[in-house]
């Protein structure tokens, strides 16, 4: 199978370039990550992040044939050749397929990703009914891989100011958490020209989420909640 990989080493001050590779696939090579590991055996200068190899850590998010995906759960079969591997679009590239996630995590921290509750803590846990817990489904599963945010056009146009689908999905996760008491603060924080409202519901985020989540829908729900509270 033929591969085309984005290579960039800032220490050598060279411009980024595409490098071609050829790999004879074995039966055990099922996912793109398998191929990458074997390509690294051929050329140990190829740099990429990876960890769990089962689609739960989010480390190996990258652009595969023009679409963001996790390398460890993207099947090789059916990919058109040469399989083009590029870093997540619009994020600063540290080396080859490794990108700088600082801005991404800054947006995440900005939405205060923790339960805010000043009431005296109960003896054991803060309880939730099954229905209340149900509301977190489709929101808590986010692995912060950044496939969505790096594929989002408004995030490309306004990287520092638009929070992006991942952070906004997480904002919604805390807004609807019955144990959280900070909903109005969270919503007020989001009500400005850039943080939330740059979203044009293009839905690229939902298209590429490897966990099948729908940030666009979460964002719509935030807008609806803001409307409800202002009417």
């Amino acid at each position, binding site marked *: 199978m033929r591969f085309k990989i984005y290579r960039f080493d800032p220490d050598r001050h060279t411009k980024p370039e595409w490098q071609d590779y050829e790999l004879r696939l074995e039966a055990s090579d099922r996912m793109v990550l398998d191929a990458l590991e074997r390509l690294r055996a051929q050329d140990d200068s190829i740099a990429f992040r990876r960890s769990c190899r089962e689609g739960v850590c989010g480390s190996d998010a990258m652009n595969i044939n023009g679409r963001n995906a996790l390398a460890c759960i993207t099947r090789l079969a059916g990919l058109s050749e040469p399989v083009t591997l590029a870093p997540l679009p619009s994020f600063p590239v540290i080396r080859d397929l490794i990108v700088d996630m600082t801005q991404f995590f800054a947006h995440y921290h900005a939405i205060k990703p923790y339960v805010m509750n000043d009431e005296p803590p109960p003896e054991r846990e803060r309880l939730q009914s099954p229905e209340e817990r149900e509301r977190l489904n489709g929101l808590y599963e986010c692995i912060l891989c950044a496939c969505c945010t790096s594929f989002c056009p408004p995030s490309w*146009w306004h990287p520092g100011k638009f929070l992006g689908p991942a952070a906004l999905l997480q904002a919604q996760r805390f807004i609807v958490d019955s144990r959280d008491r900070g909903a109005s603060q969270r919503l007020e924080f989001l009500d400005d*020209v850039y943080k939330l409202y740059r979203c044009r519901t293009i839905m690229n985020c939902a298209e590429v989420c490897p966990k099948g989540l729908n940030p666009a829908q979460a964002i719509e729900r935030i807008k609806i909640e*803001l409307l409800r509270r202002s009417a």
Partner: protein
Amino acid sequence: MRIFAGQRAFVLQRISALVLLACGTAIALRLAIGPQVTFAQWRTWVAQPLAASVLLLVAGALFIHAWVGIRDVVLDYVRPLALRLTVMTILAAGLSVLAAWTGFIVVTHAL
């Protein structure tokens, strides 16, 4: 520009959209499907205060909707601050002039 911040712009966009959806579709259908409108019919229709008011409402909704929309486009693609302010000012002035002109046309013919 707090006036059009976040939610306000969103709401104005949606409300003007609904007005245009209702009235605009009605007008478009009448023109496309109904019998050919004559000058006399058109002229008398505009002269009625109620019709003129509806026309002004539609025009108002149209210009608000256009402004919020085009402002979004400028915010997304025109990044340098000086250029952005210039473009926004020109567009705002242009749309205001067109809106005033439309109002003038309708009001003078309704009187």
